[in-house]
Protein backbone atom coordinates (compact mmCIF):
# COMPACT_ATOMS: atom_id res chain seq x y z
CA UNK A 1 0.00 0.00 0.00
CA UNK A 2 1.43 3.35 -0.92
CA UNK A 3 -1.25 5.45 0.76
CA UNK A 4 0.02 7.88 3.38
CA UNK A 5 -0.24 6.74 6.94
CA UNK A 6 -2.86 8.48 8.99
CA UNK A 7 -4.43 8.06 12.36
CA UNK A 8 -7.47 5.91 12.12
CA UNK A 9 -10.17 6.77 14.64
CA UNK A 10 -10.87 3.84 16.98
CA UNK A 11 -14.47 3.84 15.97
CA UNK A 12 -13.56 2.88 12.42
CA UNK A 13 -11.32 -0.03 13.39
CA UNK A 14 -14.06 -1.19 15.72
CA UNK A 15 -16.53 -1.12 12.88
CA UNK A 16 -14.08 -2.93 10.63
CA UNK A 17 -13.61 -5.63 13.23
CA UNK A 18 -17.33 -5.97 13.78
CA UNK A 19 -17.83 -6.08 10.01
CA UNK A 20 -15.52 -9.10 9.90
CA UNK A 21 -17.56 -10.84 12.55
CA UNK A 22 -20.73 -10.07 10.62
CA UNK A 23 -19.15 -11.51 7.46
CA UNK A 24 -18.41 -14.68 9.37
CA UNK A 25 -21.95 -14.94 10.72
CA UNK A 26 -23.56 -14.25 7.36
CA UNK A 27 -21.46 -16.81 5.52
CA UNK A 28 -22.54 -19.67 7.80
CA UNK A 29 -26.13 -18.62 8.59
CA UNK A 30 -28.87 -20.72 7.03
CA UNK A 31 -31.39 -17.89 7.07
CA UNK A 32 -31.31 -14.11 6.85
CA UNK A 33 -30.15 -12.71 10.19
CA UNK A 34 -32.17 -9.94 11.81
CA UNK A 35 -30.58 -6.92 13.44
CA UNK A 36 -31.51 -8.38 16.81
CA UNK A 37 -29.82 -11.69 16.01
CA UNK A 38 -26.68 -9.88 14.85
CA UNK A 39 -26.71 -7.72 17.97
CA UNK A 40 -26.98 -10.58 20.39
CA UNK A 41 -24.45 -12.76 18.54
CA UNK A 42 -21.90 -9.90 18.45
CA UNK A 43 -22.89 -8.48 21.83
CA UNK A 44 -23.04 -5.06 20.20
CA UNK A 45 -25.69 -2.36 20.10
CA UNK A 46 -27.84 -1.44 17.13
CA UNK A 47 -25.73 1.56 16.19
CA UNK A 48 -22.48 -0.41 16.14
CA UNK A 49 -24.08 -3.12 14.02
CA UNK A 50 -25.50 -0.44 11.76
CA UNK A 51 -22.04 1.09 11.17
CA UNK A 52 -20.52 -2.30 10.43
CA UNK A 53 -23.36 -3.18 8.06
CA UNK A 54 -22.72 0.10 6.29
CA UNK A 55 -19.18 -1.08 5.50
CA UNK A 56 -20.41 -4.49 4.29
CA UNK A 57 -23.11 -2.84 2.24
CA UNK A 58 -20.42 -1.19 0.11
CA UNK A 59 -18.04 -4.14 0.09
CA UNK A 60 -20.74 -6.57 -1.01
CA UNK A 61 -22.66 -4.40 -3.43
CA UNK A 62 -23.81 -5.79 -6.77
CA UNK A 63 -20.91 -5.29 -9.17
CA UNK A 64 -18.11 -5.11 -6.63
CA UNK A 65 -17.98 -8.72 -5.46
CA UNK A 66 -19.32 -12.14 -6.37
CA UNK A 67 -21.02 -12.07 -2.98
CA UNK A 68 -23.89 -9.61 -2.55
CA UNK A 69 -25.44 -8.50 0.73
CA UNK A 70 -29.21 -8.16 0.64
CA UNK A 71 -31.88 -7.05 3.05
CA UNK A 72 -34.63 -9.65 2.80
CA UNK A 73 -37.09 -11.63 4.92
CA UNK A 74 -36.61 -9.37 7.91
CA UNK A 75 -32.84 -9.69 7.95
CA UNK A 76 -29.55 -9.62 6.13
CA UNK A 77 -28.17 -12.39 3.96
CA UNK A 78 -25.55 -13.09 1.34
CA UNK A 79 -26.50 -14.17 -2.14
CA UNK A 80 -24.59 -14.69 -5.37
CA UNK A 81 -24.15 -11.70 -7.65
CA UNK A 82 -26.39 -11.55 -10.69
CA UNK A 83 -23.28 -11.72 -12.92
CA UNK A 84 -22.68 -15.25 -11.71
CA UNK A 85 -26.24 -16.40 -12.45
CA UNK A 86 -25.25 -18.55 -15.41
CA UNK A 87 -22.53 -20.36 -13.53
CA UNK A 88 -24.86 -20.83 -10.56
CA UNK A 89 -27.60 -22.19 -12.80
CA UNK A 90 -25.21 -24.87 -14.05
CA UNK A 91 -24.57 -26.07 -10.51
CA UNK A 92 -27.67 -25.35 -8.46
CA UNK A 93 -31.37 -26.07 -8.76
CA UNK A 94 -34.03 -23.77 -7.43
CA UNK A 95 -36.26 -26.29 -5.71
CA UNK A 96 -38.38 -23.69 -3.93
CA UNK A 97 -39.62 -21.80 -6.96
CA UNK A 98 -38.85 -24.05 -9.94
CA UNK A 99 -41.98 -24.71 -11.97
CA UNK A 100 -44.48 -23.07 -9.65
CA UNK A 101 -47.87 -23.42 -11.32
CA UNK A 102 -50.44 -20.66 -11.54
CA UNK A 103 -52.54 -22.56 -9.00
CA UNK A 104 -49.59 -22.73 -6.61
CA UNK A 105 -48.89 -19.00 -7.00
CA UNK A 106 -52.52 -18.11 -6.34
CA UNK A 107 -52.58 -20.35 -3.30
CA UNK A 108 -49.35 -19.03 -1.83
CA UNK A 109 -50.62 -15.50 -2.51
CA UNK A 110 -53.78 -16.23 -0.54
CA UNK A 111 -51.71 -17.61 2.34
CA UNK A 112 -49.39 -14.59 2.25
CA UNK A 113 -52.20 -12.03 2.25
CA UNK A 114 -54.80 -13.74 4.43
CA UNK A 115 -52.67 -16.15 6.48
CA UNK A 116 -52.89 -17.95 8.68
CA UNK A 117 -55.64 -19.64 6.68
CA UNK A 118 -56.95 -23.19 6.57
CA UNK A 119 -57.27 -25.36 3.48
CA UNK A 120 -61.08 -25.08 3.40
CA UNK A 121 -60.76 -21.29 3.43
CA UNK A 122 -58.28 -21.35 0.54
CA UNK A 123 -60.48 -23.80 -1.37
CA UNK A 124 -63.42 -21.47 -0.90
CA UNK A 125 -61.56 -18.58 -2.51
CA UNK A 126 -59.97 -20.59 -5.31
CA UNK A 127 -63.14 -22.56 -5.95
CA UNK A 128 -61.33 -25.89 -6.25
CA UNK A 129 -59.84 -28.48 -3.97
CA UNK A 130 -56.39 -27.27 -2.91
CA UNK A 131 -55.08 -30.25 -0.90
CA UNK A 132 -52.46 -31.20 -3.47
CA UNK A 133 -51.32 -27.64 -4.09
CA UNK A 134 -51.02 -26.93 -0.36
CA UNK A 135 -49.02 -30.14 0.18
CA UNK A 136 -46.71 -29.12 -2.67
CA UNK A 137 -46.11 -25.68 -1.19
CA UNK A 138 -45.34 -27.21 2.20
CA UNK A 139 -42.90 -29.57 0.49
CA UNK A 140 -41.17 -26.62 -1.16
CA UNK A 141 -40.94 -24.93 2.20
CA UNK A 142 -42.87 -21.85 1.08
CA UNK A 143 -45.69 -22.33 3.56
CA UNK A 144 -45.88 -24.17 6.88
CA UNK A 145 -48.46 -25.21 9.42
CA UNK A 146 -49.15 -22.50 11.95
CA UNK A 147 -51.76 -23.40 14.52
CA UNK A 148 -55.35 -24.46 14.15
CA UNK A 149 -58.68 -22.72 13.61
CA UNK A 150 -59.52 -23.72 17.14
CA UNK A 151 -58.53 -26.62 19.35
CA UNK A 152 -59.98 -29.27 17.05
CA UNK A 153 -60.35 -27.21 13.91
CA UNK A 154 -58.58 -27.26 10.57
CA UNK A 155 -54.82 -26.71 10.40
CA UNK A 156 -53.93 -23.18 9.35
CA UNK A 157 -51.03 -22.26 7.11
CA UNK A 158 -48.75 -19.26 6.96
CA UNK A 159 -45.86 -18.35 4.68
CA UNK A 160 -42.28 -19.06 5.78
CA UNK A 161 -39.18 -16.84 5.84
CA UNK A 162 -38.10 -18.80 2.75
CA UNK A 163 -41.18 -17.46 0.96
CA UNK A 164 -40.07 -13.91 1.69
CA UNK A 165 -36.56 -14.76 0.54
CA UNK A 166 -37.60 -16.42 -2.70
CA UNK A 167 -39.83 -13.50 -3.61
CA UNK A 168 -37.36 -10.91 -2.35
CA UNK A 169 -39.62 -9.34 0.25
CA UNK A 170 -38.24 -7.51 3.26
CA UNK A 171 -41.31 -8.71 5.14
CA UNK A 172 -44.93 -9.64 4.46
CA UNK A 173 -45.72 -5.97 5.04
CA UNK A 174 -43.88 -5.13 1.83
CA UNK A 175 -46.41 -7.03 -0.27
CA UNK A 176 -48.24 -4.45 -2.36
CA UNK A 177 -51.80 -3.67 -1.44
CA UNK A 178 -54.16 -5.59 -3.62
CA UNK A 179 -57.14 -3.32 -3.61
CA UNK A 180 -60.72 -4.23 -4.09
CA UNK A 181 -62.10 -4.12 -7.54
CA UNK A 182 -62.11 -0.34 -7.21
CA UNK A 183 -59.48 0.36 -9.83
CA UNK A 184 -60.98 -2.06 -12.35
CA UNK A 185 -64.49 -0.77 -11.95
CA UNK A 186 -63.26 2.75 -12.49
CA UNK A 187 -61.43 1.73 -15.63
CA UNK A 188 -64.42 -0.14 -17.05
CA UNK A 189 -66.63 2.84 -16.40
CA UNK A 190 -64.18 5.16 -18.12
CA UNK A 191 -63.99 3.03 -21.22
CA UNK A 192 -67.76 2.71 -21.47
CA UNK A 193 -68.13 6.43 -21.04
CA UNK A 194 -65.60 7.02 -23.79
CA UNK A 195 -67.73 4.96 -26.16
CA UNK A 196 -70.90 6.71 -25.05
CA UNK A 197 -69.34 10.13 -25.58
CA UNK A 198 -68.31 9.29 -29.11
CA UNK A 199 -71.87 8.15 -29.88
CA UNK A 200 -73.51 11.33 -28.61
CA UNK A 201 -70.90 13.56 -30.14
Amino acid at each position, binding site marked *: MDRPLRLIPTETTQSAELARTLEALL*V*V*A*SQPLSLEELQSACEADAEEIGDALELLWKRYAEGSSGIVL*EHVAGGF*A*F*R*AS*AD*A*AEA*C*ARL*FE*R*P*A*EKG*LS*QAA*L*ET*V*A*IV*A*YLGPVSRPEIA*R*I*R*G*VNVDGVVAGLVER*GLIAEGGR*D*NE*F*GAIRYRTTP*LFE*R*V*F*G*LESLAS*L*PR*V*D*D*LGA*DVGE*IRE*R*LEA*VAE*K*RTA
Partner: protein
Amino acid sequence: MTVSVHELELDLDAFQGPFDLLLSLVLREELPLREIDLAEVVIAFVEHLDRKGELDLDACGEFLVLISALLELKARAMFPDEDAELAELEPEEAAEELARRLAEYRRAKEAAQFLRKRIEERRTFFFRLGPAPLAPKVERSLAPQEPEKLAAALRVLAIEPPAPSLAHMALRFPPVSQFLERWRSLLRRRSRFDFDQEVEGLSRVEIAVAFLALLELRKQDEIAIAQAAPFAPIRISRADAERSLSWTVRSA
Protein backbone atom coordinates in the same frame (compact mmCIF):
# COMPACT_ATOMS: atom_id res chain seq x y z
CA MET B 1 -79.03 -13.82 -39.07
CA THR B 2 -76.54 -11.33 -37.83
CA VAL B 3 -72.85 -11.96 -37.83
CA SER B 4 -71.75 -9.30 -35.36
CA VAL B 5 -71.48 -11.48 -32.30
CA HIS B 6 -69.54 -14.13 -34.11
CA GLU B 7 -67.08 -11.78 -35.65
CA LEU B 8 -66.35 -10.21 -32.26
CA GLU B 9 -62.57 -10.47 -31.79
CA LEU B 10 -61.33 -10.62 -28.23
CA ASP B 11 -57.93 -9.74 -26.82
CA LEU B 12 -58.05 -10.68 -23.14
CA ASP B 13 -55.37 -11.64 -20.63
CA ALA B 14 -56.37 -15.27 -20.71
CA PHE B 15 -57.70 -15.56 -24.23
CA GLN B 16 -57.13 -14.14 -27.65
CA GLY B 17 -59.41 -14.93 -30.57
CA PRO B 18 -63.03 -14.84 -31.70
CA PHE B 19 -65.87 -14.89 -29.19
CA ASP B 20 -67.11 -18.10 -30.82
CA LEU B 21 -63.94 -19.93 -29.96
CA LEU B 22 -64.07 -18.65 -26.40
CA LEU B 23 -67.59 -20.04 -26.07
CA SER B 24 -66.70 -23.44 -27.37
CA LEU B 25 -63.52 -23.70 -25.29
CA VAL B 26 -65.50 -22.83 -22.17
CA LEU B 27 -68.24 -25.31 -22.98
CA ARG B 28 -65.68 -28.05 -23.64
CA GLU B 29 -64.14 -27.09 -20.28
CA GLU B 30 -60.81 -26.49 -21.92
CA LEU B 31 -60.68 -22.95 -20.61
CA PRO B 32 -61.57 -22.28 -16.98
CA LEU B 33 -64.20 -19.56 -17.00
CA ARG B 34 -62.84 -18.07 -13.80
CA GLU B 35 -59.79 -17.00 -15.79
CA ILE B 36 -61.90 -14.92 -18.14
CA ASP B 37 -62.68 -11.31 -17.38
CA LEU B 38 -66.26 -11.07 -18.62
CA ALA B 39 -66.37 -7.31 -18.09
CA GLU B 40 -63.65 -7.08 -20.74
CA VAL B 41 -65.83 -9.11 -23.10
CA VAL B 42 -68.74 -6.71 -22.57
CA ILE B 43 -66.51 -3.72 -23.24
CA ALA B 44 -65.11 -5.35 -26.36
CA PHE B 45 -68.66 -5.90 -27.59
CA VAL B 46 -69.71 -2.32 -26.89
CA GLU B 47 -66.63 -1.01 -28.67
CA HIS B 48 -67.32 -3.39 -31.54
CA LEU B 49 -70.89 -2.05 -31.84
CA ASP B 50 -69.53 1.46 -31.77
CA ARG B 51 -67.14 0.75 -34.61
CA LYS B 52 -69.95 -0.67 -36.72
CA GLY B 53 -71.80 2.60 -36.17
CA GLU B 54 -75.28 1.08 -36.18
CA LEU B 55 -77.35 -0.50 -33.45
CA ASP B 56 -77.90 -4.12 -34.39
CA LEU B 57 -80.71 -5.24 -32.10
CA ASP B 58 -80.44 -8.88 -33.08
CA ALA B 59 -76.77 -8.88 -32.27
CA CYS B 60 -77.40 -7.18 -28.93
CA GLY B 61 -80.05 -9.70 -28.03
CA GLU B 62 -77.89 -12.65 -28.89
CA PHE B 63 -74.95 -11.18 -27.04
CA LEU B 64 -77.06 -10.55 -23.94
CA VAL B 65 -78.23 -14.16 -23.89
CA LEU B 66 -74.73 -15.53 -24.33
CA ILE B 67 -73.03 -13.24 -21.85
CA SER B 68 -75.64 -13.85 -19.16
CA ALA B 69 -75.24 -17.59 -19.64
CA LEU B 70 -71.48 -17.18 -19.20
CA LEU B 71 -72.01 -15.02 -16.12
CA GLU B 72 -74.23 -17.65 -14.57
CA LEU B 73 -71.74 -20.41 -15.36
CA LYS B 74 -68.98 -18.34 -13.82
CA ALA B 75 -71.07 -17.64 -10.74
CA ARG B 76 -71.72 -21.35 -10.31
CA ALA B 77 -68.04 -22.10 -10.68
CA MET B 78 -67.39 -19.99 -7.60
CA PHE B 79 -69.42 -22.51 -5.58
CA PRO B 80 -68.14 -25.85 -6.85
CA ASP B 81 -69.55 -28.17 -4.22
CA GLU B 82 -71.68 -25.69 -2.49
CA ASP B 83 -74.59 -25.14 -4.83
CA ALA B 84 -76.86 -26.18 -2.03
CA GLU B 85 -75.29 -23.67 0.28
CA LEU B 86 -75.77 -20.90 -2.23
CA ALA B 87 -79.29 -22.04 -2.98
CA GLU B 88 -80.25 -21.84 0.65
CA LEU B 89 -79.15 -18.23 0.97
CA GLU B 90 -81.56 -15.40 0.41
CA PRO B 91 -81.03 -13.91 -3.06
CA GLU B 92 -79.44 -10.70 -1.73
CA GLU B 93 -77.17 -12.70 0.53
CA ALA B 94 -76.20 -14.99 -2.30
CA ALA B 95 -75.37 -12.01 -4.50
CA GLU B 96 -73.32 -10.45 -1.74
CA GLU B 97 -71.49 -13.70 -1.05
CA LEU B 98 -70.81 -14.16 -4.74
CA ALA B 99 -69.46 -10.64 -5.11
CA ARG B 100 -67.27 -11.15 -2.07
CA ARG B 101 -65.82 -14.36 -3.46
CA LEU B 102 -65.27 -12.88 -6.89
CA ALA B 103 -63.43 -9.97 -5.33
CA GLU B 104 -61.36 -12.28 -3.17
CA TYR B 105 -60.45 -14.46 -6.12
CA ARG B 106 -59.57 -11.43 -8.17
CA ARG B 107 -57.31 -10.20 -5.41
CA ALA B 108 -55.63 -13.60 -5.21
CA LYS B 109 -55.02 -13.53 -8.95
CA GLU B 110 -53.55 -10.06 -8.81
CA ALA B 111 -51.29 -11.06 -5.93
CA ALA B 112 -50.21 -14.16 -7.86
CA GLN B 113 -49.32 -11.95 -10.80
CA PHE B 114 -47.17 -9.80 -8.55
CA LEU B 115 -45.40 -12.89 -7.20
CA ARG B 116 -44.81 -14.20 -10.71
CA LYS B 117 -43.17 -10.89 -11.60
CA ARG B 118 -40.97 -11.08 -8.52
CA ILE B 119 -39.70 -14.54 -9.45
CA GLU B 120 -38.90 -13.20 -12.88
CA GLU B 121 -37.00 -10.23 -11.43
CA ARG B 122 -35.01 -12.45 -9.10
CA ARG B 123 -34.25 -15.09 -11.70
CA THR B 124 -30.56 -14.17 -11.60
CA PHE B 125 -30.31 -14.19 -7.80
CA PHE B 126 -29.07 -17.41 -6.25
CA PHE B 127 -28.81 -18.06 -2.53
CA ARG B 128 -28.02 -21.01 -0.36
CA LEU B 129 -30.85 -23.19 0.88
CA GLY B 130 -30.03 -24.86 4.14
CA PRO B 131 -26.98 -24.78 6.35
CA ALA B 132 -23.51 -23.83 5.15
CA PRO B 133 -21.13 -26.72 4.49
CA LEU B 134 -18.81 -25.81 7.35
CA ALA B 135 -21.30 -24.24 9.74
CA PRO B 136 -20.81 -24.94 13.43
CA LYS B 137 -22.87 -27.83 14.78
CA VAL B 138 -26.00 -26.88 16.62
CA GLU B 139 -25.80 -27.90 20.26
CA ARG B 140 -28.95 -29.15 21.91
CA SER B 141 -29.00 -28.38 25.58
CA LEU B 142 -31.46 -29.45 28.22
CA ALA B 143 -32.65 -27.37 31.15
CA PRO B 144 -32.10 -28.85 34.63
CA GLN B 145 -34.56 -31.67 35.32
CA GLU B 146 -36.21 -32.93 38.50
CA PRO B 147 -34.76 -36.34 39.42
CA GLU B 148 -38.20 -37.41 40.68
CA LYS B 149 -39.31 -37.49 37.02
CA LEU B 150 -37.12 -40.56 36.52
CA ALA B 151 -38.78 -42.48 39.32
CA ALA B 152 -42.20 -41.42 38.06
CA ALA B 153 -41.36 -42.60 34.53
CA LEU B 154 -40.30 -45.99 35.85
CA ARG B 155 -43.48 -46.29 37.92
CA VAL B 156 -45.56 -45.60 34.80
CA LEU B 157 -43.96 -48.68 33.26
CA ALA B 158 -44.98 -50.76 36.27
CA ILE B 159 -48.69 -49.97 36.03
CA GLU B 160 -50.64 -53.15 35.42
CA PRO B 161 -52.72 -52.91 32.25
CA PRO B 162 -56.47 -52.93 32.95
CA ALA B 163 -58.27 -56.24 32.47
CA PRO B 164 -59.79 -56.44 28.98
CA SER B 165 -63.04 -54.53 29.08
CA LEU B 166 -66.28 -56.10 27.93
CA ALA B 167 -68.18 -52.88 28.35
CA HIS B 168 -68.45 -52.23 24.64
CA MET B 169 -70.28 -55.54 24.20
CA ALA B 170 -73.11 -54.06 26.23
CA LEU B 171 -73.47 -50.92 24.10
CA ARG B 172 -77.10 -50.44 23.49
CA PHE B 173 -78.39 -48.25 20.73
CA PRO B 174 -81.65 -46.48 21.47
CA PRO B 175 -83.88 -46.74 18.41
CA VAL B 176 -83.82 -43.77 16.04
CA SER B 177 -87.60 -43.78 16.07
CA GLN B 178 -87.55 -42.84 19.73
CA PHE B 179 -85.78 -39.58 18.90
CA LEU B 180 -87.84 -38.98 15.76
CA GLU B 181 -90.90 -38.91 17.99
CA ARG B 182 -89.20 -36.79 20.60
CA TRP B 183 -88.12 -34.11 18.06
CA ARG B 184 -91.50 -34.08 16.35
CA SER B 185 -93.40 -33.57 19.58
CA LEU B 186 -90.92 -30.89 20.68
CA LEU B 187 -91.46 -29.01 17.40
CA ARG B 188 -95.21 -29.23 17.80
CA ARG B 189 -94.79 -27.21 20.98
CA ARG B 190 -91.94 -24.90 19.90
CA SER B 191 -90.94 -23.59 16.49
CA ARG B 192 -87.20 -23.99 17.22
CA PHE B 193 -84.74 -25.44 19.71
CA ASP B 194 -81.03 -25.82 20.33
CA PHE B 195 -79.81 -29.36 19.74
CA ASP B 196 -77.03 -29.12 22.33
CA GLN B 197 -79.45 -28.04 25.04
CA GLU B 198 -81.84 -30.87 24.37
CA VAL B 199 -79.22 -33.63 24.40
CA GLU B 200 -77.41 -32.40 27.48
CA GLY B 201 -76.72 -35.25 29.85
CA LEU B 202 -77.18 -37.98 27.24
CA SER B 203 -74.42 -40.51 26.47
CA ARG B 204 -72.30 -40.17 23.36
CA VAL B 205 -74.13 -42.97 21.61
CA GLU B 206 -77.49 -41.44 22.45
CA ILE B 207 -76.38 -38.06 21.13
CA ALA B 208 -75.24 -39.68 17.90
CA VAL B 209 -78.58 -41.41 17.45
CA ALA B 210 -80.39 -38.18 18.30
CA PHE B 211 -78.43 -36.46 15.55
CA LEU B 212 -79.21 -39.23 13.09
CA ALA B 213 -82.88 -38.62 13.81
CA LEU B 214 -82.36 -34.93 12.97
CA LEU B 215 -80.80 -35.82 9.64
CA GLU B 216 -83.74 -38.08 8.90
CA LEU B 217 -86.18 -35.25 9.62
CA ARG B 218 -84.12 -32.90 7.48
CA LYS B 219 -84.20 -35.39 4.64
CA GLN B 220 -87.95 -35.45 4.87
CA ASP B 221 -87.98 -31.65 4.82
CA GLU B 222 -89.67 -31.45 8.20
CA ILE B 223 -86.98 -29.29 9.75
CA ALA B 224 -84.22 -26.83 8.95
CA ILE B 225 -80.83 -27.12 10.62
CA ALA B 226 -78.68 -24.06 11.12
CA GLN B 227 -75.34 -23.35 12.67
CA ALA B 228 -73.83 -19.85 12.79
CA ALA B 229 -70.26 -21.10 12.68
CA PRO B 230 -68.40 -24.39 13.07
CA PHE B 231 -68.87 -25.65 16.64
CA ALA B 232 -71.56 -23.04 17.34
CA PRO B 233 -74.85 -24.39 18.75
CA ILE B 234 -76.92 -26.30 16.20
CA ARG B 235 -80.31 -24.72 15.81
CA ILE B 236 -83.33 -26.70 14.72
CA SER B 237 -86.48 -25.08 13.40
CA ARG B 238 -89.68 -26.28 11.78
CA ALA B 239 -89.33 -26.25 8.03
CA ASP B 240 -92.34 -24.00 7.75
CA ALA B 241 -91.03 -21.58 10.37
CA GLU B 242 -89.44 -18.42 8.99
CA ARG B 243 -86.02 -19.02 7.61
CA SER B 244 -83.07 -18.17 9.71
CA LEU B 245 -80.73 -15.54 8.37
CA SER B 246 -77.66 -17.42 9.37
CA TRP B 247 -75.72 -19.87 7.22
CA THR B 248 -77.53 -23.09 6.75
CA VAL B 249 -75.97 -26.48 7.16
CA ARG B 250 -76.79 -28.61 4.20
CA SER B 251 -77.18 -32.36 4.19
CA ALA B 252 -74.34 -32.45 6.81
